[in-house]
């Protein structure tokens, strides 16, 4: 799995901890990495992803359906799953303020439901680290 993930575009380094099943991925400096592609690559290597967290920086925008989102690339944004932290960022929508957030983009559904790794991720904010 480590080699498989390491071959994905935008990946600089992959650290795997076999004991607790934790995988740390360091993106290349250009930041052009696709979490959905990493999810698919992990599934393709025969391993189940229970959870995926990201730390990302970007501006707050409203997407085409009016939901708050973090714009991480000029043509890519992640809609926020609504919680108290996302409500706190509402006033920054459309402003040039860059925020750094840690959040969850994927969690394996409970029970026997099968997840769709190609579905567009929503970002559940766990922590707002910085506002610049």
């Amino acid at each position, binding site marked *: 799995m480590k080699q498989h993930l390491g071959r994905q575009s935008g990946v600089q380094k992959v650290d795997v901890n076999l004991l607790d099943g934790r995988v740390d991925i360091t993106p290349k400096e250009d930041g052009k990495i696709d979490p959905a592609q990493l999810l698919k690559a*992990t599934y393709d290597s025969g391993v189940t992803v229970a959870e995926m967290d990201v730390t990302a920086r970007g501006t707050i925008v409203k997407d085409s359906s009016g939901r708050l989102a973090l714009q991480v690339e000029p043509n890519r944004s992640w809609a926020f799953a609504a919680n108290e932290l996302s409500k706190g960022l509402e006033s920054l929508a459309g402003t040039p303020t860059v925020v750094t957030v840690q959040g969850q983009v994927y969690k394996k559904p409970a029970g026997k439901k099968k997840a769709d790794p190609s579905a567009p991720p929503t970002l559940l904010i766990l922590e707002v680290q910085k506002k610049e």
Partner: protein
Amino acid sequence: MNIKIFARLVLFGSMIVVGPVAQAQINHIEMRVEGMT
């Protein structure tokens, strides 16, 4: 002279608008996986 000032204003204005988007990026990804041998 006025053209130079105007050009500088356009340059600084575009830096302010484009800057934050250019800085946007994913810094780190962490996964918890199951079934790893």
